[in-house]
């Protein structure tokens, strides 16, 4: 275990170690859904929820099952299966029992089953040897950071809606360029807290 205050990890994963801006993980839904502020906020919430829960779940699976049996190298496949099954289960439950939640969040769940930011968090927390609390804070913070990035991007895309963009750069192209510039801006946070 390494000695970092979980709160530091929490803030670092929002700003300095943002999943999108510093690791470029979870890009596909980031680019596809960032055209509407409201929709991206809902997707961000779904990602945050799934990240916070699967980081704990995968932590338990890893340290209670894989490590005692010496199967650490199987973590990739196990993590993916756990995430996929968990998301599917949550979707079923929400759709059936929490109607209002389903409309704001549930319809986005299938979109993020295969979001690489989620697998990324589970793998990073193992590599960086976080404990349970740290892992949870890392998952939660990464989710909030992801939400922050996608909502900011949706805001920017709303602003440039009438801009004259060269035809070849419309849509995903200009979004990627903006992401790059945003990543530079996020780099400015790197003095605040640092992990890794």
């Amino acid at each position, binding site marked *: 275990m390494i000695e970092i205050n979980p709160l530091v990890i929490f803030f670092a994963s929002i700003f300095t170690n943002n999943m999108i801006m510093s690791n470029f993980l979870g890009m596909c839904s980031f680019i596809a859904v960032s055209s509407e502020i409201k929709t991206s906020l809902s997707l961000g919430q779904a990602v945050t929820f799934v990240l916070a829960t699967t980081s704990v779940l995968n932590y338990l699976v890893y340290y209670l099952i894989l490590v005692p049996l010496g*199967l650490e190298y199987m973590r990739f496949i196990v993590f993916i*299966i756990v995430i996929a099954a968990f998301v599917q289960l949550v979707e079923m*439950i929400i*759709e*059936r029992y929490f109607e*209002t939640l389903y*409309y704001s969040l549930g*319809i986005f769940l299938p979109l993020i089953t295969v979001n690489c930011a989620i697998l990324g968090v589970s793998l990073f927390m193992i590599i960086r040897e976080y404990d349970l609390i740290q892992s949870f804070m890392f998952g939660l913070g990464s989710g909030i950071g992801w939400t922050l990035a996608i909502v900011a991007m949706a805001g920017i895309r709303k602003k440039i809606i009438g801009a004259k963009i060269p035809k070849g750069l419309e849509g995903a192209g200009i979004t990627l360029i903006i992401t790059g510039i945003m990543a530079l801006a996020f780099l400015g946070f790197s003095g605040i807290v640092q992990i890794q």
Partner: protein
Amino acid sequence: MSTIVTTVLTISGITGLLALLLSVANKTIANYGEKKILINGSKELVVEGGDTLLSALIDQKVFIPSACGGKGSCGYCKVTVTQGGGEILATELGYVTPKEREEGVRLSCQCKVREDMQIQIPEELFSVKQYDYHVAFIKDLTPTIKHLRLELPEKEEIEFKAGQYVQILAPKYKGSDEEVYRAYSIASSPMDTKAVELYIGYVKEGKATTYVHNFLKEKMKLTVVGPYGDFFYQDSDREMVMVAIGTGMAPIMSILKYMRSNNIQRKVTFYFGARTAEDLFEMETLEQLQKDLPNFKLVTCLSKPTEKCNWTGEVGRVTDMLQKYLSDASGAEAYLCGSPVMVDSVIPILKDKGMPEEHIYYDKFE
């Protein structure tokens, strides 16, 4: 050796456990049982719950128009849900106007059947079916418009009203990796129940038109769903004003052929516009119709005739022709067909000439 066994057993165990969990959840949580859908207050369907409304209806052979295949990106599959169906989803908002939203209009490909529902759909959709046609012929009418005749297998028939349209299914081909449905008006007479004829103009990078123009050959099979549309021949004694440009001639042709078959002697004037003489087509058929229908008059105009055209007829747009030849339209009704720009510029002229708005029928080709 033992490591391998443990690995396999553990991973299988974890996966099996999760699979079990999900199967149980699927049987209990996600099992909605049979649900009833009441359509237009009269027809009741029993469907398996949990599916989208669109696929539940298609399973029951009720064909709601849909061009994107349930991805929520075309907005064609609207139905009015009066009971059940829950709230409107974020994925639908872009296609449903605030007024429609009040009426309960939903995209049926997004709305799921999770309780008993009551819906309203246009009555004509009940007669919509899927047909497997084969291509009897493909002819070039102009360099950019093809004339297709599709024939049904023995013993099958299609019933439609003169002026309605069908959707053809363009399969995947080299250069297009998805199946698309596109709508085309029927040009043949509804009396001819064994076949439909279509005029298909080439649209640059259009998936269905490229398929028809470059890949579809005679004798090949083509899936058609239809008929659709609320633009069709109206029974009355009023004088008829018909306006079309380009492939917009198709539904007009169907109406004229229908009138010929039923010996309807209403006064008809058909204003047909094209750019150059090269873009004119089916002129012999219209010629023949003029002979067979004594009260039918054709006004053809070219907007940009060139030297080569050798054109001695009218020059200008259909709107110019209406200004020139149509005097009092208060007792007449109009059938407009073609690009939205044409339709939108013709309607005010007709209203100016005294035609009541409810007698103007149109079909915009987009």
